[in-house]
């Protein structure tokens, strides 16, 4: 069983209401470390056997077309070791 990770974040210029709300709440809870918070999605995809380059290309395609909304989001595909 291999694992492929797809991380999806809003583009930096796009408003991130969720991240903002979290960022505003942290100080109220006494946490002062954050300058700013952005919230995104993380997909853990279990695949059969070791991820092949072909498979990764496929995942890239799926991320591009489906997992991320590239009008407002960017994504990275990683193999989890």
């Amino acid at each position, binding site marked *: 069983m291999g694992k492929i990770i797809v991380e999806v974040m809003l583009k930096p210029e796009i408003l991130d209401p969720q991240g903002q709300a979290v960022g505003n*709440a942290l100080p109220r809870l006494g946490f002062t470390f954050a300058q700013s918070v952005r919230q995104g999605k993380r997909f853990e995809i279990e695949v059969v056997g070791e991820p092949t380059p072909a498979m990764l290309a496929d995942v890239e395609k799926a991320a591009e077309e489906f997992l991320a909304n590239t009008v407002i989001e960017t994504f990275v595909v990683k193999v989890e070791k």
Partner: protein
Amino acid sequence: MRVGVVTFPGTLDDRDAARAVEYAGAEPVSLWHGSDDLKHVDAVVLPGGFSYGDYLRCGAISAKAPIMKSIIIAAEHGFPVLGICNGFQVLAEAHLLPGALTRNADMHFLCTDQTLKIENNSTMWTTGFTAGQEIVIPMKNAEGNFNCDDATLNELESEGRVIARYVGVNPNGSRAGIAGITNKRGNVVGLMPHPEHAIDLLTGPSKDGLTFFTSVLNAMVK
């Protein structure tokens, strides 16, 4: 008797909950999330809505509000608390109730007239019902899918702490069709559907919801 209705930023059904409290014959008292003052109310309703926009997790940010600190302490001493929809989510996030409310199985917000079976009529909020009674009240949420681990589920079932279950098709994938639960003591109740929207036939599908509010009144005078 005075029943507090809490308003968090983004709360929507607070005025509706206050209306239901009035219909039931009690005095609604509006409580503000940012203050820890319970204004000597005899019970509290956490109404529905999208507090903090449902951001992070439904109810997560509100669960940390100053008013919740007072409610948590009071609840541990048997003070009656009803969490409706977002209010239920807040109670779960505040760990006054077990489990969590997650995304509906079909991903969609669902607004519908829902049939429920009342399975526990011994809580402070359900004494007015007969055990096994079926009621119809509105349900409207996107994250009403009750979720918990097996141990918690067994505990809830064996202790009869499931107060209401969905009848017919499971509308959102909730474990064991759970629509509402209570704490061990029966003073804290969380319910996904909206009793405050079923208090007259002009604006709701039934009057069944009113019984939750009259129940707590009777529980108090006793």
